[in-house]
């Protein structure tokens, strides 16, 4: 069973509000991913970290999101100004270093932007 912990499970925000969600990766997993699962159930990659460093991120994340993975604290993903189109399930996943290793997913944070 996955031990990736995401909080909160549900988040409701108004348009323009900040929305922040957190993730504690599985112990010993230095690589953390954030995905957005949209209403069509597609996974959209947002950003990934190795330890505290950003490895890759998409343009939208760079412009509208704030994300970090500090040492000894949960990783976080924050939308600076929520839009209706941000309503989705946000999944955090972690793995050990090499890219062929399995991703372990958290239960997700479901964001609703009203």
């Amino acid at each position: 069973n996955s031990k990736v912990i995401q909080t909160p499970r549900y988040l409701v925000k108004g348009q323009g509000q900040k929305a922040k969600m957190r993730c504690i990766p599985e112990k010993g997993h230095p690589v953390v991913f954030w995905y957005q699962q949209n209403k069509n159930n597609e996974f959209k990659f947002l950003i990934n970290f190795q330890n505290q460093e950003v490895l890759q991120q998409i343009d939208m994340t760079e412009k509208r999101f704030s994300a970090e993975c500090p040492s000894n604290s949960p990783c976080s993903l924050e939308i600076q100004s929520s839009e209706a189109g941000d309503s989705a399930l946000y999944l955090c996943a972690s793995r050990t270093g090499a890219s062929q290793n399995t991703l372990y997913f958290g239960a997700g944070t479901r964001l609703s932007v009203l």
Partner: protein
Amino acid sequence: GDSVTQTEGLVTLTEGLPVMLNCTYQTIYSNPFLFWYVQHLNESPRLLLKSFTDNKRTEHQGFHATLHKSSSSFHLQKSSAQLSDSALYYCALSPSGGNYKPTFGKGTSLVVHP
């Protein structure tokens, strides 16, 4: 870049019939890892099976898949569908080594009815 193409949308089956979900991929890397993840309703995605070895059948929980590099395919099969197999299925690809982000297909929703 890499891409993964799956059987799109919804697949509906009667219990007891065989399951086949298609997955083909494109990559510049010669030794990719291929994965199938499964996500049941209101649960987080988890690994179903993965493979690296050409032409070797991989099995788990009644499902099996064989990586065929000649046709760039990794189709998921099961001989007899069960009601509990109803879920979302995602095919994914990662190059071996390094620290690359996996590429996911758009997902296939499998519904098994009595």
